C-alpha cells in the first residue's frame, strides 16, 4: 500500500534501485558517519513498537561491517528524511530495509575505494573491521570515522553495489535486542505523550454532541485559571497552562455548548451494508466450464466496525512562529500528513517541519494524524506558544478512524470428493484507507468542521496490486477452476474508516477458511488433508503442515467443550505465509486457549522480533474476533471507555507457540499482519468443531453464537 501503491515509477531512464531507494536516491539521505565513531541512520519508516528501527540498524551494521551499537537510528522528520510514505502493510523491511541494505553496501564500497586509492592497497585486500579499514599486514588504513567529513555519500546510489550473500551475514538473522525497549521499560521520556516544551499550553478538544453536529451556540461562563477557548466553526477546543485545568475546562465548555444534531448513522449495520449504494467491481474473474457439483457451501459473513484501541491516546505538539509550523507527531507517514496539512491549513509544504516521536502501538491509521492538525490549528492561533493536544480515552475509541464493517458473500461448489470446482466471493465494504496525503481533500478529522469546511473524502480501497483494501485476501489461495471475486465499495461513509492492521484480509480469510472447513466436512475429509490436496503453493503447504504437527493435529482427541481448528493464508497473496491451529474452550463464552503458528516470512532480519510480531498479531486477532465491535446509535459511536469496547485481558490470552520456516535466501516479506487472518479462521473452525455451528457474525460472542444456533434454511 505504500510505494507499490504509487504505481510504476516514472520512466526517467534512471536505473531501478531496491525499495525506497528508488525514490530517495541520495546516499546521504539514508546515512552519515560521525567522526566520533558512529553511524547515523535516517530511515523514513517509523517505530510503532514493531521493532523496525532495530531491524534496520542490524541491516546497516551488517553491510557496513560495524558493531551494532555504533548505529544510531534517527527518527524521521520532514523535510530531511527520505520520503518513505507510510509505515504500514508489513512493508518496512522490503522498502526501507532493502534500501538501507543497498545504500550501506554502496557506502562501504565508496569508502573502501577511497582508502584503496589513498593507501595503494588494492580494494580487494582491504577488510572492514568494526568501521576500520585494515590492510592484509594488519595496518589500519583509516576508518569511516576518519573520513566522516569527506562528504563521500553526497552522491546518488547506483545499481552496482552488491550486498552480502545470505551465507555471509552475521548480524541480520540474529535476535538483537530492541534498541528502544530499555527506555520504555525504565520509564524514560521517549513517547510523544512525554514531550514537554517550555511555555507550553495544554489543549483539549470539545467534540460535537453527535456525528456531523454543528455548533450553534456557546454559553458564557467562568473557566479555570488562565484557560481560553478556541472556536473555528464547529472546531472547539480549550487551552490552559496546566493539563488538569485544560481537562476541567473542556468539561465545562462541553456542558455549555449547544449543537444542532441529526441522525447520520445506520440503524442496523448489517442491513445497511447490504442495501447501501456503492460501486461494484470485479477483482478477479477466471472463467471455466465446470461439471454439476456434488457439494455446495454458501454463506454471508458479517464483520462489524472495529477499531485500533491503542493503549496510549493520540497526542501532538505544534509551534507556529509566523512562517514555520513545527509539529511533533506519532503519524505513520509524516510526508503524507504534511500533504494534508498543506490542504487543510493553506500553508506551503516548506512551512511544515514535522518530527516523528514514538507513540503507543497504533496498528494502523488511528487518530495520530488527526490530532496533529488539531495541534497545528491551535498553534497558529497562538503564535510563538507550543500547544500540546492529548486525546481522552473516549476520543481514542470513538473519534479516530475505524476499520470498516464488511460483508463477505461466498458460494463454493465441489465434486463428490470435495475437489473445488467453482468459487465466488463478493466483498461489501467502505474503503480501508482514509490515510492522509493521497487525494485532493484532506482526510483529517478537524478539516470537515472548520468554519470553512472541507468535504469528507470517501476512504478508498487501493488496487489489489498495491495490496488491496476490502479485497485484500479475497482471492482464495487454492486451486479452483472457475473463480469470480468482486467488491462493492460503498459510496457513503457514515463513520470515517481507514486502515487497521490486516485491512480486509481478516474477514476474507475468516470467510474462505470457514467455507473450506465446511466443504471438507461435506466431503467427509479431514480439514488438513482437504486443504493440502488443493494447495499448489509449496510454501503454503509447508506452514500448514508445520502448524498441524506442532498442534499434533493428526493425534488430536476430541474433548467435551473444546474444539480444534486450523486455517492458512498467504498475506495479500504476495506476502508472508502463515498457518494457525487454534484450541478453543466453549464455556459461558468462547475462550481461545492455545494457538500454534507457523510462518514463512522469507529472510528473517530478527527472529525474536519477528516471532514477537507474529504472536502479537495473533493475540490481537483473537481479541478482535472474540470480543470486538464498535457500537453506535443513530448519532454517535458508543465507545466512551474500555467498558464499551472491551479487548482481551490477561486471563483470556491464549498460550502461543510460534515458529518460523527458515528461508534465508528468499526476499523478506514482513511479519506484522500475516498471522491475523489465519488465527481468526482457525478460531471459527475450532468453534465449529466444539459446537457444531458455523458462525457468520463477528464477534464470536454468546449472542452471535445463539444467532447461529437458531435454525436457518439449509444451504
Amino acid at each position, binding site marked *: 500500500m505504500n510505494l507499490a501503491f504509487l504505481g510504476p515509477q516514472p520512466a526517467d531512464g534512471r536505473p531501478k534501485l531496491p525499495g525506497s531507494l528508488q525514490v530517495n536516491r541520495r546516499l546521504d539521505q539514508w546515512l552519515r558517519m560521525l567522526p566520533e565513531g558512529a553511524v547515523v541512520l535516517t530511515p523514513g519508516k517509523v517505530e*510503532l*513498537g*514493531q*521493532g523496525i528501527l532495530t531491524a534496520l540498524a542490524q541491516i546497516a551494521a551488517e553491510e557496513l561491517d560495524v558493531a551494532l551499537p555504533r548505529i544510531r537510528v534517527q527518527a524521521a522528520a520532514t523535510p530531511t528524511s527520505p520520503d518513505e510514505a507510510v509505515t504500514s502493510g508489513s512493508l518496512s523491511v522490503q522498502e526501507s530495509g532493502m534500501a538501507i541494505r543497498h545504500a550501506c553496501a554502496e557506502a562501504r564500497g565508496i569508502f573502501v575505494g577511497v582508502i584503496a586509492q589513498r593507501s595503494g592497497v588494492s580494494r580487494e585486500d582491504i577488510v572492514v573491521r568494526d568501521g576500520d579499514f585494515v590492510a592484509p599486514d594488519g595496518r589500519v588504513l583509516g576508518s569511516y570515522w576518519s573520513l566522516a567529513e569527506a562528504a563521500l555519500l553526497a552522491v546518488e546510489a547506483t545499481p552496482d553495489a552488491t550486498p552480502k550473500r545470505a551465507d555471509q551475514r552475521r548480524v541480520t538473522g540474529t*535476535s538483537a*535486542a*530492541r534498541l*528502544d*525497549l*530499555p527506555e*520504555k*521499560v*525504565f*520509564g*524514560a*521520556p521517549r*513517547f510523544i*505523550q*512525554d514531550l*514537554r516544551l517550555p511555555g507550553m499550553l495544554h489543549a483539549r478538544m470539545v467534540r460535537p454532541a453527535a456525528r456531523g453536529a454543528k455548533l450553534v451556540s456557546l454559553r458564557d461562563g467562568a473557566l479555570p485559571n488562565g484557560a481560553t477557548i478556541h472556536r473555528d466553526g464547529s472546531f472547539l477546543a480549550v487551552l490552559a497552562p*496546566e*493539563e*488538569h485545568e485544560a481537562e476541567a475546562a473542556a468539561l465545562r465548555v462541553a456542558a455549555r455548548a449547544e449543537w444542532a444534531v441529526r441522525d447520520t448513522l445506520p440503524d442496523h449495520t448489517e442491513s445497511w451494508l447490504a442495501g447501501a449504494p456503492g460501486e461494484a467491481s470485479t477483482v478477479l474473474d477466471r472463467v471455466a466450464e465446470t461439471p454439476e457439483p456434488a457439494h455446495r457451501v454458501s454463506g454471508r459473513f458479517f464483520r462489524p466496525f472495529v477499531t485500533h*484501541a*491503542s*493503549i*496510549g*491516546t493520540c497526542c501532538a505538539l505544534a509551534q507556529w512562529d509566523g512562517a514555520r509550523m513545527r509539529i511533533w507527531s506519532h503519524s505513520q507517514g509524516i510526508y503524507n500528513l504534511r500533504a494534508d496539512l498543506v490542504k487543510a491549513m493553506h500553508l506551503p509544504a516548506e512551512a511544515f517541519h514535522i518530527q516523528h516521536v*514514538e*507513540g*503507543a*502501538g497504533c*496498528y494502523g491509521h488511528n487518530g495520530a494524524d488527526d490530532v496533529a492538525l488539531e495541534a497545528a490549528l491551535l498553534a497558529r492561533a497562538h503564535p510563538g506558544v507550543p500547544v500540546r493536544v*492529548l486525546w*481522552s*480515552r473516549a476520543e481514542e475509541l470513538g473519534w479516530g478512524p475505524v476499520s470498516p464493517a464488511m460483508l463477505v458473500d461466498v458460494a463454493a461448489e465441489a465434486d463428490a470428493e470435495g475437489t473445488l470446482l467453482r468459487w465466488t466471493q463478493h466483498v461489501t465494504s467502505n474503503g480501508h484507507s482514509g490515510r492522509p496525503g493521497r487525494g485532493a481533500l484532506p482526510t483529517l478529522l478537524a478539516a470537515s468542521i472548520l468554519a470553512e469546511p472541507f468535504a469528507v473524502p470517501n476512504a478508498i480501497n487501493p488496487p489489489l496490486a498495491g495490496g488491496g483494501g476490502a479485497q485484500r485476501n479475497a482471492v482464495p489461495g487454492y486451486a479452483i477452476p472457475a473463480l469470480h471475486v468482486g467488491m462493492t465499495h460503498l459510496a457513503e461513509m457514515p463513520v470515517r474508516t481507514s486502515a487497521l492492521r490486516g485491512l480486509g484480509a481478516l474477514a476474507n480469510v475468516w470467510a474462505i477458511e470457514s467455507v473450506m472447513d465446511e466443504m471438507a466436512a461435506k466431503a467427509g475429509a479431514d480439514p488438513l488433508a482437504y486443504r493440502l490436496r488443493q494447495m499448489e503453493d509449496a510454501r503454503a503447504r509447508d506452514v500448514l503442515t508445520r502448524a498441524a504437527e506442532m498442534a499434533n493435529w493428526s493425534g488430536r482427541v476430541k474433548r467435551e467443550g473444546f474444539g480444534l481448528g486450523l486455517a492458512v493464508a498467504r498475506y495479500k497473496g504476495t506476502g508472508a505465509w502463515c498457518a494457525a491451529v487454534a484450541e478453543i474452550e466453549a464455556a459461558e463464552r468462547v475462550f481461545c486457549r492455545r494457538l500454534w503458528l507457523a510462518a514463512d516470512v522469507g529472510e528473517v532480519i530478527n527472529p*525474536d*522480533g519477528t516471532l*514477537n*510480531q507474529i*504472536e*502479537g*498479531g*495473533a*493475540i*490481537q486477532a483473537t481479541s478482535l474476533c472474540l470480543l470486538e465491535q464498535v457500537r453506535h446509535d443513530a448519532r454517535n459511536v458508543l465507545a466512551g*471507555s*474500555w*467498558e464499551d469496547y472491551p*479487548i482481551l*485481558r*490477561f*486471563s483470556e*490470552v491464549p*498460550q*502461543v507457540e510460534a515458529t518460523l520456516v527458515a528461508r534465508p535466501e528468499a526476499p523478506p516479506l514482513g511479519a506484522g499482519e500475516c498471522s491475523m487472518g489465519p488465527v481468526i479462521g482457525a478460531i471459527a473452525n475450532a468453534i465449529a468443531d466444539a459446537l457444531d455451528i458455523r458462525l457468520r457474525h463477528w464477534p464470536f460472542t454468546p449472542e452471535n453464537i445463539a444467532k447461529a444456533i437458531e435454525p436457518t434454511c439449509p444451504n
Partner: protein
Amino acid sequence: MSTSFHLNGAAVAAPIAPEASLLAALRGPLGLSGTRFGCGAEQCGACLVLVDDHPQFACTLPVSAVAGRRVTTVEGLGTPDSPHPVQRALLELQAGQCGFCLSGIQIRAVALLRETPRPSEDQVRAALEPHLCRCGSHNRILRAILRAAEEMAPMEAAPRGATP
C-alpha cells in the same frame, strides 16, 4: 497550593491543586512521565503506582490523598545500571512491543511478588487482569514476571507455579 510526599525515596512537594490527580502531578510539575495515562478511569492499569507499597491507580487518586505517604513509580524501581529483577527479565525476554503498558505492569508485578514471592502462572495472570496490553505481549510479560520471581526468591526449593 502544594502537596508533600515521598516520591521514589525523596521528599517532594507537588505544586498543583490538591484535587488534581496524582498522575497529573507526576507527569506535570514533578516531571516524571514514566507513569502513563491510558484511560483515566481505572480500566487499563497504565497509571499504576505504589502508595505505601500498595498498588493504586494514579489517574483517579487525588494528589492530596498521598500527602505524607510513600509513592513509588516505575522510575523508582531501577535504572539501566541497576535494574529491578522484573525490569531485567522484561528486557531479557524482550517482553514488550510498544512498551506503553509496561510501567503499570511492572508496578503490579513488584506488588505481586512482595505478597506472593513464588506465584503460579495463573496467579500472575489474575494479578495482571486490570492491565491492558494491545500489542499482544502478554505471554512474554507473564514469563518475565515468573522469571523475576525465580531470581528474587532463589532460596526456595522448587517453583510452586508452572514455569515455562
